[in-house]
């Protein structure tokens, strides 16, 4: 009788088929267990209005100069000029405010003036944090609080005396040279010798970047940064990821000014630098 099939070959093929089926079954089991989707990059774009700096101080100064000129012209006709007045105090809110005013020749003789009330021909129109705006003959006159003036004088004197001028406030931006930035970019080790910054997290969320160490007399110390400062904003962008910080760094060649907001002693402090 002639053999129609090779039983040995069939046996090998059958065994191989079984092995293929077992391999496929195992891979299906693995496929069932493994995730079916990958991880996608989920970047929340930190859209904030572009940082623009307006020097209100200059505007007010200009306005004051213009007003002073007008006052000089008006003074002879009225007899009493606003330059002869003193603003001793401010109370209330912008809608319901009172000011204490006096004349320079008799500073102890004060008078309480409410919004809309008239003092020596000048009507109190509105108030700000440290000044009162009077109106006379459809023209506005600003009277600044005495304490603010003296504080400003004291602060400017202190700055002149000190060797390093720290950028404690946003009043006067401190200059940062592009050469220094380039130097630090080429020598990253120098950065970590001078300053140590670590992210501060609330769970997975980054709250800001904390200055954990700062070398005395380093460039960073001269810029007004202090140990314990929590950097929360740069150029009006909240720093909630490394990407936010790096985005600012990558644009440093194109910007002329950088504004940093730090939390210091539970208070927000704004540091402003001119890049030149």
């Amino acid at each position, binding site marked *: 009788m002639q053999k129609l099939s090779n039983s040995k070959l069939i046996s090998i093929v059958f065994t*191989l088929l079984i*092995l293929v089926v077992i*391999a496929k079954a*195992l891979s299906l089991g693995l496929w069932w267990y493994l995730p079916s989707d990958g991880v*996608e*990059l989920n970047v929340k774009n930190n859209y904030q209005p572009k940082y623009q700096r307006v020097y209100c101080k200059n505007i007010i100064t200009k306005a004051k100069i213009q007003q002073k000129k007008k006052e000089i012209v008006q003074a002879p006709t009225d007899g009493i000029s606003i330059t002869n007045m003193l603003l001793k105090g401010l109370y209330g809110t912008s809608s319901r405010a009172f000011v204490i005013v006096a004349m320079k020749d008799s500073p102890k003789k004060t008078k309480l003036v409410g919004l809309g009330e008239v003092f020596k021909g000048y009507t109190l129109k509105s108030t700000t944090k440290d000044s009162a705006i009077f109106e006379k003959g459809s023209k506005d006159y600003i009277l600044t609080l005495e304490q603010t003036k003296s504080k400003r004088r004291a602060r400017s004197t202190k700055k002149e005396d000190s060797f390093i001028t720290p950028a404690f406030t946003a009043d006067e931006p401190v200059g940062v040279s592009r050469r220094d930035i380039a130097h630090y*970019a080429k020598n990253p080790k120098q950065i970590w010798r001078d300053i140590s910054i670590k992210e501060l997290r609330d769970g997975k969320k980054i709250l800001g970047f904390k200055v954990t160490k700062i070398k005395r007399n380093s460039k960073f110390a001269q810029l007004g940064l202090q140990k314990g400062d929590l950097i929360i904003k740069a150029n009006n962008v909240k720093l909630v*990821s*490394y990407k936010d910080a790096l985005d600012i760094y990558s644009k440093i060649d194109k910007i002329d000014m950088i504004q940093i907001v730090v939390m210091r002693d539970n208070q927000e402090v704004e540091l402003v630098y001119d890049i030149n």
Partner: protein
Amino acid sequence: MVKKIAIFFGYISFFILALLYFTPKISLYYFAEQELKAFDIVVSSETLVDTGFSLKIQNPTINIKSIESAKIQELDITILGLYNSVNISNIGLSSTAKSFLPLNIEYVNITHTIVDPLHINAQVKGEFGEAKAVVNILDRNLSIVLLPSKLMKEKYANTLRNLKKSENGEFVYAKTF
């Protein structure tokens, strides 16, 4: 008897190859992505191609802490058990790294074979020059030997200062992890 053992090993080899072929490589890649996410590393914009015994990843972008760090043209992962390799070609590093090193890397070839099971070897070539890296799995250390290019020597001398220079002009970096 010898014939039976040979047939048995033949079956085992066939089974392993079948298993490797049917392994859901794309799903395994997704699993690896999830593991990498714990270290703030995300691979995005990639196209995955399962070629049977290897996985090709085309045009991936590597993001570390949400920062785009590198763009790769192609990444080929082959895991055969006895011979495993990861071949990466045409890597463009993020411009933020331009202060430290040249941005273009031609290739990175990482291999692990049964012949040398305790070491993972890597070869890298790029604008910075050529480098050879060896990871000792047992001693848990990494050593890199770098032969810098002219560009690297001229423009990135500061980076080279972080490495130890050997007598034959190579730069060595070693780290235990």
